């Protein structure tokens, strides 16, 4: 082989080394850890204890289901809020598109935890949002949003909205404006043109956005610990507690793999469902 043939392999080598060192090795280590028994003081012995998984699922199934539910709610909220935002910026943003995009990204310049904590002030029982509404009697005086599921879901949707807006925007922005004109030319009104052409053509962006919001939201633990109180813990909180507080590494690893497995299965079935030939049109 000549040098030329080696070149691509040489170029890809650092990436492979990186992945092997920081992804494959730790994953292998954690997989092995999830099958051990013992504790921090006496040490963990490899005993291929599959019971860890049974324990993890039977003890924490509630948090697992809640995490997937919160993640799904936040993702749906992000699509509902994010699609119109992306659409508006792409088609109506004119010369200020990059300004609007910067505005969407602006919150990222503030720490994730700080941003989440600030929602405690927004949603406080007599805070800037609920206080005035309560004083004019629009909502009952004892209504509390903080430390509830809606608070967590709102927080998640807020924190991950840009991950939904950006991929949808990227697809809409690239879209050939002529195909929308072609739809109008072929007797489609605004709604038909949107449903038959713009929406289906932008689905890859929605697909990417859903992945980029659903995965981090369903495994997040900051929002539930800051905004959710004690009764709305997600699986991320459990993993964090088991690792850092209880030092129960085998159970923590087992839960991690359960979560990963569920997300992978979810993603693949989602990809298959959307990847099928035709979503909107029926073949003649």
């Amino acid at each position: 082989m000549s040098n030329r043939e080696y070149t691509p392999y040489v170029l890809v080598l650092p990436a492979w080394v990186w992945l092997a060192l920081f992804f494959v090795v730790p994953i292998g280590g954690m997989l092995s850890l999830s099958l051990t028994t013992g504790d921090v003081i006496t040490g963990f012995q490899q005993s291929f204890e599959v019971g860890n998984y049974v324990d993890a699922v039977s003890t924490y199934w509630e948090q697992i289901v809640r995490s997937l539910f919160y993640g799904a709610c936040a993702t749906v909220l992000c699509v509902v809020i994010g699609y119109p935002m992306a659409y508006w910026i792409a088609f109506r943003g004119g010369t200020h598109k990059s300004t609007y995009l910067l505005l969407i990204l602006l919150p990222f310049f503030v720490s994730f935890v700080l941003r989440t904590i600030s929602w405690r002030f927004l949603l406080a029982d007599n805070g800037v949002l609920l206080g005035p509404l309560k004083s004019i009697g629009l909502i009952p005086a004892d209504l509390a949003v903080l430390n509830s599921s809606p608070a967590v879901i709102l927080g998640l949707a807020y924190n991950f909205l840009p991950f939904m807006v950006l991929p949808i925007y990227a697809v809409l922005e690239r879209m050939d404006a002529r195909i929308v004109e072609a739809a109008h030319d072929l007797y489609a009104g605004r709604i038909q043109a949107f449903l038959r052409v713009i929406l289906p053509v932008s689905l890859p962006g929605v697909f990417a956005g859903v992945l980029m919001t659903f995965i981090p939201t369903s495994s997040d633990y900051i929002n539930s610990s800051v905004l959710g109180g004690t009764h709305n813990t997600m699986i991320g909180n459990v993993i964090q507690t088991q690792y850092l507080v209880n030092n129960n590494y085998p159970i923590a690893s087992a839960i991690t793999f359960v979560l990963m497995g569920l997300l992978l299965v979810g993603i693949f079935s989602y990809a298959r469902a959307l990847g099928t030939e035709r979503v909107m049109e029926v073949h003649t």
Partner: protein
Amino acid sequence: MTKSFRSGSETVTAVTGVDLAIAEGEFFSLLGPSGCGKTTTMRMIAGFEEPTGGVVRLDGRDVTGVPAHHRDVNMVFQSYALFPHMSVADNVAFGLRRRGVDKAQIRSRVAEMLDLVELGHRGKHRPSQLSGGQQQRVALARALVNQPGALLLDEPLGALDLKLRQSMQVELKRIQREVGITFVYVTHDQGEALTMSDRIAVMNRGGVEQLGTPAEIYEHPATRFVADFIGTSNLLTGTVGGRTDAGTWRVEVGDGATALAAELPDGAEAGAEVHLTVRPEKVRISVDEPEGAVSRLPGTVTETVYLGSATHYQVDIGSDQRITVYQQNTSGSGLVAERGERVWLSWTPDHSYALTD
């Protein structure tokens, strides 16, 4: 029709005073350089732009202000604008479906139309799996299947290579004859317009310069712009002299040389400055002075280009004027004259037109 665009505080007028009546079943071309307003004119017919002044009538009905999806015209876009997420058949069926045509009829009309553009076997493919020429034909089928009152084509062959473009020209003309629908064709390519059109409107700076059949426009250009834009033309500047016994006008074109014009433009008389046009293939080049009632100009050959079937000559006739001559190589004797030789140029009076503008 008039169309102005506002850009910031400036108002740009793209089309002004365009008044066209296009006959049913006609192949009509809007021809002009980029920025001449031809595409804007077409987009006003389609309903993508509204005229700032004037009206658009389709089949006698005023459709000004009617949105595109309620107009009985369809468009073939320059970039084709096929729906990338649909099969070829679904693309073609799109318009029929929106109009609620029943399924069995959609299927047969789509199949029939795909056969007409010779893509019957490609119905299930995605547009991205087809070549440029095939995508072009899908775009045509998608518009034609709706049997519109008029089909608008916006530089549809612009993206194709030369060979394909030439065969598509013939193809388009065939299809137009078969379906009998009015075609309004926008192009900057004069060859395309001359080949296919029944009538051509030559546009420049937002207005129509000349309207006529391809032969009229080529043989009798009405303005200097048309003479220059359509094909190659020699433009000579001269002063109108007297009339000859045969009734033609003498035009003095510098250095005492005289050309003849059959007619003068309206308003021009003896002493007026006019421009004479003559096509390069109408000019004869000879070493000996020609006889008869022809324009006769002496000159010096400055350039010869041998092209096999023909030879192109550049001849300097003095006072900074040059004439291009295309001479068919029929005798096989090679060049009539070499570079630097003195020659005579001649053409009959009916081959040159005097223009004031």
